[in-house]
């Protein structure tokens, strides 16, 4: 018997060792440093208790980064889900070359976020302004990434352009699980398209709605690559996301311990939001 069971324990060894060294240990270290005043490169540091945490709540840069990240994440989540659901409905309708279009719409998802960001950066600074000037739209005729109040919209556009791809494919997978007989029955009952959507389609893809909302929210709360490629947090600090702040403050600003405390808070925020979202949306699934 033991000869059969022992190998199961051995099978866990490579993953457990790697996971402990490169995930658990650093996470514990991060929490440990958050109670010190370590600057990241020297040798000495002191314990400061919860001082970093108190300071976080009075720091304008931190508040600013949280405000930007949340504003960004909520807008991206909503836009991505509306657009991808519409596209998925279109791709599920009776059209020609369905697989070809599915392929095209998924394409952005396989491309590097950083490079997509650089390409859009060029479009925002050199291409869209030409259209704006030709069409006489003043908002478009300058580079919106250079404007403190508009730059975040540029990042939203790029993030949505890319994340719609994945959500569309997931919604499409959901739509294909709905039996066509249900639509035939509702057709016989004389239900309109609108009614059909809200009474059949939407309730039946509720689990896919949950997964898409959680994925889109989680991914956009972690936004980093787009920021680096488009604005580097600027103009000023108008588009600095939380992860960008932790990166720049921690590595370049000598705020190692302070940003460690920030990332502990960030972890708690993301965990709470994800759990609440799953709870809330799954309860909705069951009610229907």
């Amino acid at each position, binding site marked *: 018997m033991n000869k059969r069971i022992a190998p199961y324990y051995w099978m866990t060894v490579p993953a457990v060792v790697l996971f402990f060294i490169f995930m658990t240990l650093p996470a514990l270290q991060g929490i440990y440093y958050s109670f010190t005043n370590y600057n990241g490169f020297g040798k000495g540091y002191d314990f400061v208790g919860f001082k970093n945490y108190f300071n976080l709540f009075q720091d304008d840069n931190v508040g600013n980064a949280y405000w930007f990240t949340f504003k960004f994440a909520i807008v991206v989540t909503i836009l991505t889900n509306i657009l991808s659901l519409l*596209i998925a409905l279109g791709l599920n*309708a009776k*059209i020609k070359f369905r697989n070809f279009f599915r392929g095209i719409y998924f394409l952005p998802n*396989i491309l590097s976020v950083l490079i997509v960001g650089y390409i859009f950066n060029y479009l925002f600074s050199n291409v869209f302004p030409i259209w704006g000037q030709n069409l006489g739209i003043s908002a478009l005729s300058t580079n919106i990434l250079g404007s403190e109040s508009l730059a975040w919209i540029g990042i939203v556009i790029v993030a949505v352009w890319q994340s719609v791809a994945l959500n569309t494919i997931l919604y*499409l997978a959901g739509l294909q699980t709905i039996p066509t007989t249900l639509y035939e029955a509702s057709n016989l009952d004389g239900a309109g398209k609108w009614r059909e959507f809200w009474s059949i389609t939407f309730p039946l893809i509720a689990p896919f709605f949950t997964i898409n909302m959680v994925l889109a929210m989680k991914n956009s709360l972690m936004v980093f*690559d787009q920021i680096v490629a488009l604005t580097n947090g600027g103009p000023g600090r108008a588009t600095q996301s939380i992860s960008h702040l932790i990166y720049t403050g*921690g590595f370049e600003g000598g705020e190692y311990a302070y940003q*460690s405390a920030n990332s502990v808070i960030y*972890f708690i925020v*993301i965990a709470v939001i994800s759990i609440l979202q799953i709870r809330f949306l799954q309860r909705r699934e069951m009610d229907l």
Partner: protein
Amino acid sequence: MRSRLRTNWPVMLLIVLGTLFILFPLYMTVTIALKNPEQMAQSVFAIPTILHWENFASAIDMTNFFQSFRNSAIVTASTVILTLLSNSMVAYAIARNMEKRKFFKGLYYYFVSAMFIPFPIIMLPIVKLTASLEMTNLLGLILLHTVYGLAFNVFVYVGYIRSIPVALEEAAFVDGATTWGTFWKIIFPLMAPISATVGILTCLSTYNDFLLPLIIISDPSQYTLPLVQYVFQGQFNTDFNLAFASYLLALLPMIIIYLFAQKWIINGVTQGSVK
């Protein structure tokens, strides 16, 4: 009823218009990469009449493309292989024992809970750790990518393995097969569909990752493709045509794979995310 079977032209038209939004940035990338500054000055949008292939040669030269491509390929391929081997193995042990033994159940939650840990929380310590282990190189990248996929992959693998009937393994045990033999000869081949999914997702995320190489790698000879684009951004500022040729070169390997394995990739991604 009949109307359902006919092509829905209004929807078709909207779908075609939608593809323009996706293809326009890609059209710009390709055309800019093939122009020279004089052609750009005439019109940014026009299809280039004379193709400047030498942009690619200069971009390859400037960014040392083949070296960074080699690095990206090594990291991606090794990560995929290591992930498939280590993650499927631990997932199998967990899936077959989590009901009877607390250790494996605990292990499952230990791994899966990491799905909620945002990368920045370990970002700062991991740099110190890899530096002290002298792993600020491709090996370090491979190990870290393998670990960061573990939470999600174990979750997906365990779900799949539990749907494989135990009877097969029991028959093998009766015939005198060892646990290892059963895993490699029976279970591992049976997991091919889910391994394909895990492999595709790992391949995409590793190849496109930028943050991890950015903080780990310091030696330019070890740069991966996204990192090269970042490092050379400043030098490109004077010449957009070279920059775009370089972007296109970095994007191309995945686009080519995608063209050939499109259906497979889409199915794989769907399966992985919905499970």
